[in-house]
């Protein structure tokens, strides 16, 4: 499914439809959202630089991490620097989001600051309209055949939401989506930093929602040592839920599991992981909690009592009296000698049978009584 998302982002928007938008949301309990963002970002950039995508470039709005971090990221992913240079423009909202450094520079008339900027530094994140126009301006720099479209990635909407109100952020994203130059757009949000309505509003604007949920919920927030195991588990794995919305309104829910690794992240089908997790997390015990394959087959072969009924044989229902098939005598009335004789023949047949001799007729056939008091009735 992670591939589905990558493919949708790569294929871009249909004519006459809004461009596909992806919300990635995480929380402190499962803080791997930035890894997921990096994954989709680098996959999309590699598609773009290979010329496989609808978008001919990508504008990355960097709020949370520095432009140099992203350049390093692309380098680690093995993308050619010159291609990245051609297909990615970074709008730097990280270095100087409020223009403080700029103010400082002017007030001191400093020689020249040692601060080196890579990408375009945006100096007033509170001005959403200006942000929108700067993104579109950067997007104009891309060249290609026919109609040039580009992708937009916003690395953390949460920071935007801190500076501007929710309606203006939603309006800003919606404007981007409906702009016909934009091929696709995706963003990350830390859902627990805002009211639920904020992430809900952004989810309405998006066609795909990828939410990260913790593998394990610690039963209660108390006791650090008890939840350490869960913390560790959640810090490198997460449940990856995807909600895909089609144009016709059909909604598809998908579920995968996500693992962080030295090289990045890996998505796995949920079922295969479940057993591994179980095996790792269950305490080692002397007995088996699960069956092996052979045991499972053997168990399936066991014919349960009365299970043969309905296969054409006469149906027998035990009522305590007529326990033997008709034509046989009630063993209670049999002479002891005849009884032992019968037992002999049956051992010859190598067939076990339980003989039950009722003490008296006083005992009711299906008595609920428990004479030994050892049954849990």
């Amino acid at each position, binding site marked *: 499914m992670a591939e589905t998302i990558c493919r949708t982002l790569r294929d871009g928007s249909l004519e006459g439809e809004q461009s596909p938008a992806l919300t990635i949301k995480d929380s*402190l309990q499962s803080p791997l959202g930035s890894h997921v963002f990096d994954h989709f970002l680098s996959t999309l950039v590699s598609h773009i630089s290979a010329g496989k995508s609808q978008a001919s470039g990508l504008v990355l709005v960097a709020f949370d991490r520095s432009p140099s971090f992203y350049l390093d990221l692309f380098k680690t992913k093995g993308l050619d620097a010159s291609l990245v240079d051609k297909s990615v423009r970074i709008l730097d909202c990280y270095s100087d989001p409020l223009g403080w450094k700029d103010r400082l520079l002017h007030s001191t008339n400093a020689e020249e600051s040692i601060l080196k900027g890579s990408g375009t530094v945006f100096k007033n994140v509170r001005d959403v309209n200006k942000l929108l126009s700067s993104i579109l301006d950067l997007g104009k720099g891309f060249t290609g055949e026919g109609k040039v479209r580009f992708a937009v990635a916003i690395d953390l909407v949460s920071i935007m939401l801190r500076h501007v109100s929710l309606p203006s952020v939603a309006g800003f994203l919606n404007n981007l989506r409906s702009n016909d130059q934009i091929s696709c757009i995706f963003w990350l949000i830390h859902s627990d930093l805002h009211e639920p309505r904020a992430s809900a509003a952004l989810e309405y604007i998006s066609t795909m929602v990828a939410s990260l949920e913790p593998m394990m919920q610690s039963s209660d927030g108390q006791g650090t040592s008890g939840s350490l195991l869960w913390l560790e588990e959640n810090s490198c794995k997460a449940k990856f839920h995807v909600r895909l919305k089609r144009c016709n309104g059909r909604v598809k829910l998908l579920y995968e599991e996500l693992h962080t690794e030295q090289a990045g992240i890996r998505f796995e089908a949920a079922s295969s992981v479940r057993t591994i997790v179980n095996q790792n997390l269950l305490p080692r015990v002397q007995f088996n909690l699960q069956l092996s394959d052979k045991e499972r087959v053997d168990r399936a072969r066991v014919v349960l009592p009365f299970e043969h009924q309905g296969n054409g044989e006469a149906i027998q229902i035990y009522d305590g009296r007529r326990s033997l098939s008709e034509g046989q005598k009630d063993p209670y009335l049999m002479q002891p000698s005849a009884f032992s004789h019968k037992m002999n023949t049956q051992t010859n047949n190598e067939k076990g049978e339980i003989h039950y001799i009722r003490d008296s007729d006083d005992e009711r056939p299906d008595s609920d009584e428990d004479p030994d008091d050892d049954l849990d009735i």
Partner: protein
Amino acid sequence: MNPPSNLLDEALGLGHGGAMAPLPAGRVVLVEDCVETSGAFVLHHLLKRALSAGEGDGAVLFLALAQPFSHYDRILRKLGCNLSVQRSNNKLHFFDMLKLEFPGLTEGNDIEGGFVELYSKIQRAIEASRSKEYSRGCITIMIDDLSLLEIAACGSIDCVLDFLYYCISLTSELDCSLVILNHEDIYSSEEAPRLLSHLEYLADIVIKTEPLSTGLAADVHGQLTIFNKGTCNRHGHSMNKIHNFHFKVKENGVEYFYPGSQY
């Protein structure tokens, strides 16, 4: 003279060879303490580490809102580090904000203006020590503590966060690291500890000091939980690690040990 590395250094990823290295550049460390267990000793330890990194290496910018200079001087002297000398050597830049006033705050200047002024002082100090030839090491910015900064900002969380974001932008641009002390238990649960969540997202390493869940003990003063998010450097993501151990604060140092491993 290589003191043996302790559990705290190992958890912070500094423990190699026992050499006194400061925090690696670009890291943001959040120390979260609570009323019962102060986390000041972690700050002292990091301060000492940053200052004793060797000649010409490393400098510290200390934003002191909680204690006067003499307090830190006295404690660090016990740990074998003379702050007065370091201060006169320009390795320690001490911002005394004990009165919770912004240094350059003049009348008519709003809170944001105060923060801009404070930030500009920090940036200038860093640029000054960077421009010196011998200074190549990492510069550590320390804030003791953030809750008081919030008070100085008249409760405006956004201003504090803006300021922190600017400090963090320095970490990647000028190879600094940032150490923040904050209290965990001063936020009500309903108001959703927004500042704290923000900080936890920002931090690369979160150090929590807590009392023992079993109550007071003579030999153990509390427990430390260190959540090291690992670095996302050019070698790819390194894995997250969680450490948990007990500590005992002594007159001239702190002892760290795994639960149950002492005596």
